[in-house]
């Protein structure tokens, strides 16, 4: 691994700096000569605190959304009667769980004659996992339904 380049080393030192400079414009000075002035240097004094807080607010909002998604957000997922209870763990990788005894002992709803689709409450992360397989869609009732069975979907958009 190469060492940190010279032009980045200052970034890793605890050197006090100024608030961001995003743009500057040419303004005539008293001598008539154009000098560069920074919009940001004015904001450093006037609105610097607010500008400094903006990214922290955005980060906090992101963390709040992440926590909400993981802890609180629940969705109803309709599992069709002919779908397997467990989907494979990858699209192209072999399903190593396919031949496990537990899997064989767990009949699908179709095998048990249970033709009614199941409605389960899942987390948003479960829906993310399902969507990566192209396996969820809205059904006629407007509910989120898993379309994934034992095989990868033939109409996988990727």
């Amino acid at each position, binding site marked *: 691994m190469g060492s940190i380049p010279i032009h980045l080393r200052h970034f890793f030192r605890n050197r006090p*700096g100024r608030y961001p400079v995003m743009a500057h414009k040419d303004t005539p000075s008293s001598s008539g000569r154009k000098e560069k002035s920074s919009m940001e240097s004015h904001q450093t004094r006037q609105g610097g605190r607010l500008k400094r807080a903006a990214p922290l607010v955005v980060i906090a909002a992101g963390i709040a959304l992440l926590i909400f998604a993981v802890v609180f957000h629940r969705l109803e997922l309709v599992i069709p009667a002919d779908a397997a209870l467990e989907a494979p763990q990858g699209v192209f990788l072999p399903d190593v769980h396919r031949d496990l005894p537990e899997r064989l002992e767990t009949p699908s709803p179709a095998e048990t004659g249970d033709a009614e689709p199941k409605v389960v409450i899942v987390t948003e992360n479960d829906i993310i996992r399902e969507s990566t397989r192209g396996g969820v869609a809205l059904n006629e009732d407007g509910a989120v339904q898993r379309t994934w069975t034992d095989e990868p979907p033939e109409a996988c958009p990727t």
Partner: protein
Amino acid sequence: MRFRTWVQTAFLGVWMLPMGGALFNICGPVYHCYACPLATFACPIGVIANFSAIHVFPFFAVGMLLFVGGAVGAFICGWACPFGFFQDLLSKVPTPRWRLPAWTAHTRWAVLLGMVIFVPYFFGVAHPLFICRLCPVGGIEGGVPAVVSAAIAGEEALPWPSPWKIGIVVLVVSAMFFTYRPWCMLFCPLGAIFTAFNRFSAFFLRFEPKACTSCTACHKMCPAGLTPDKRANDPRCIRCLECTKCPTSALSVGSVFRKA
């Protein structure tokens, strides 16, 4: 090899862990298709598009984008994105390069609003303009390995992507030889989001006007053809930090955690 190249290579180890989709319930912050056999996380754009199709707000994906965007902005594009790294590697081929006009960056928002949000929401994932059906990232990272692995396995029916997708892949890859990061500059919806945070991220590019001698060296150093001395936090900037090699140190990396 450059420091940034080492960092990009190291990040490949994060985004390409062969875990068999065990972490597909988490969005990664980079554009990496989950159809890739080595993908570690779910693609945030794919998740947003799929959630739009089922009319559910993607709290996790949006939260991830806000968190990462607010923290580092487009640094993630320049230093961590695997598809950006792929384009960087192809940009090293010595071919004539053209710089794209600034207005072309707006097409990224058209892709984000149109193909990622509106089309899935109103027409579902079956529409031919659904982002995953045309995305060259999926074509390269997911489609090529699928075809190759099927060919190696001796399957008769190879899982070829659609002709449209193949055409887009060929076009985008060809464009990589003639302009810098064409996908990022023209179409990347994730890049549009992250570069929009350039002005509001905790880490940013700092410009010291007093140190600037107007030598325009940063114009020549910027691979995207931007003008960092005029607009250090340009919404097209991917934060490669080439311009911070400024001979007078007028451009540097700053953060809100350091007091003025």
